[in-house]
């Protein structure tokens, strides 16, 4: 249903460089005895926009949560921006401050105003002076089109507005990579569009993005690559056109026929 809105975007300056942003090799993860992620290999170049699709429980969210170590992987290697993710707390905090994350349930801080939500991390992690942090925050709030809400609390905003604030909050840290974990799954249909539009404009600026999403229209319009996961492994990956028009694996065909069926 988003096709019409997003198909027309200009892809000309969405260039992908040769520089590697994220390198995942032979990554494995278990929850107790349950093998959630199996031999994940993935290389993401700077400026690439990757959409990860798959049925629920396939490990999509777990995988991107491993990239900023909200989840710990037990085997294999993850290198983000040249820094390997290990148990070293300093590395983890460094990577987290370079990698923005947007959650399904927004996770704004309800006790702080919108502006404070956006300035908190720059002030306390990046040590940016308060005035400057507020200016940056207002800039990004204008970009997501809600500067007038800056002094309200998250509880007073609609879901779509909250999610746009969450995106602005991540952008205030000037991240080099953005992770989206089902950013539109908790939203009404009317609000999905405003959030997707924000993400499209971010893609147009060349941000490196990994999105777990069920919005196939967004995938077709924006992604360089669509990755299909099932049972904790990458089953198929391809350019969006080929992925949607000519899926190879049986599981992918089944999945696409299910979601594009109506």
């Amino acid at each position, binding site marked *: 249903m988003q096709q019409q809105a997003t198909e027309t975007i200009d892809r000309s300056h969405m260039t992908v460089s040769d520089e590697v942003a994220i390198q995942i090799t032979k990554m494995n993860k278990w929850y107790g005895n349950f093998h959630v992620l199996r031999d994940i290999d993935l290389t993401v170049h700077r400026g690439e926009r990757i959409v990860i699709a798959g049925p629920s429980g396939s490990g999509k969210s777990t995988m991107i949560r491993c990239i900023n170590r*909200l989840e710990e992987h037990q085997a294999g290697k993850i290198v983000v921006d040249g820094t390997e993710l290990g148990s070293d707390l300093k590395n983890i905090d460094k990577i987290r401050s370079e990698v923005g994350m947007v959650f399904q349930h927004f996770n704004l*801080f309800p006790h702080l105003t919108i502006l404070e939500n956006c300035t908190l991390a720059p002030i306390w992690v990046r040590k940016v002076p308060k005035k400057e942090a507020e200016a940056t925050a207002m800039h990004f709030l204008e970009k997501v089109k809600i500067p007038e809400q800056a002094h309200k*609390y998250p509880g007073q905003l609609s879901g779509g507005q909250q999610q746009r604030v969450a995106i602005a909050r991540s952008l205030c840290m000037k991240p080099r990579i953005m992770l989206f974990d089902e950013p539109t799954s908790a939203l009404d249909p009317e609000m999905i569009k405003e959030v997707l539009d924000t993400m499209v404009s971010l893609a147009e600026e060349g941000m490196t993005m990994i999105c777990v999403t069920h919005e196939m229209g967004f995938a077709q319009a924006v992604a360089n690559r669509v990755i299909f996961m099932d049972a904790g492994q990458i089953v198929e990956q391809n350019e969006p056109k080929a992925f949607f028009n000519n899926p190879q694996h049986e599981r992918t065909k089944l999945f696409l026929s299910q979601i594009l069926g109506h």
Partner: protein
Amino acid sequence: MSDTHAQTVPFVRDTMVEEQEPPLSQSGAYKWTRENLFSTPLNIILTVVSLFVIWLVLSHTLPWAVLGIWDADSLAQCREIRDEIYGPDASVACWAVIAERWNQLLFGFYPPELYWRPVLAFVLFLAAIAPVLFASVPRKALWFSAAAPFVLYWLLWGGSLWGPIAVGAGFALGAVVMRFATPALGALAGVLLAILVPLLYWFTLCAPLAGALNAVIPLELVDVRSNDMGGFMLAMIIGISGIALSLPLGIVLALGRQSDLFIINKCSVIFIEVIRGVPLIVWLFTASLLLNYFLPPGTNFDLMLRVIIMVTLFSSAYIAEVVRGGLAALPKGQYEAADALGLDYWKSMRLIILPQALKISIPGIVNTFIGLFKDTTLVVFIGLLDPIGLSNAIRASTDWNGIYWELFVFIGLCFFIFCFSMGRYSLFLEKKLRREHR
């Protein structure tokens, strides 16, 4: 036929209905009374019966309290006056005991010529607590609040002002060490050093320094010993110190209990469970009797200080559990969002997690504080003269032998005022911090 189809026929509204006042019988006092007192026959009966019971209680207690005698020197004289005015069978209160002994109920055996010191201390305390309780007071006043405990100690116990100043300097020293050691040596080493350096200072330099300063500029007040303090002054000293100290300790314990670090986690759990699992009165006896065995011979550790430590430890275990409830009530997403932004553990706790968890815990925390404040009356069993202890002492004099109700009513009323205001403040704070629908 056409009537039955009226609902299904297409309909377009051409004029909107204006807002109107509700009918008179549906608003104001009339409606309230009807709905709440006389809605059904059963409710009418219940209302009448309740009114009768209330009248029965008040008709006995109110005359007793209101007609009470305020001007007498002893219980016997009270009775004489009663016989004269109301006749020998009347039951009236003898408030004269309060009028004569209220100084004692407030200050215990504090020297009367020095009463101005606890009074001044109380006023200073109110001024110091204001910026902590109300955000509208300028934030700079918090510096005064930080300095107040040392000044209050000096006012109450007397001695040289340099003693408390030298002790307070230890905290400042710790803060300075923390500030400069943490960037150089890392967080853990910084914290350890910030604890060790002040401890060393307190055990070695602190006392000689205070002595030397006092020799140069003497700032001394007459000493008053803890044994002379009593009444509500004692209850407030123990209660307020316990409240102020147990909150931070309780928060640290709650965080410790949530910690992934095995030893810290287990130490917190054991501390909380042991302290909570034993009655406060046992801990108070421990403080008054057993603690001396463990301390080096010759050290004279003030009994009141020991009681404050015990009360603090006791209520911090409760606070820890209340705060843990608040921490557990926060959605996991809040921890994740703080992590994802690159905030380290202490920053995410301080800026994101604790402000929300403490807000959730306010009713429980205040509940614990009210309990602590009332529990200060237990110190009567280890020989401290709290208000209950003083009421026993007052009864022990021949003048007031046999007077019970009036003293207990007065003490109860005073405690009620303190505890009720704490409860009100908690409601005010909850309302102020509410973030939804504003």
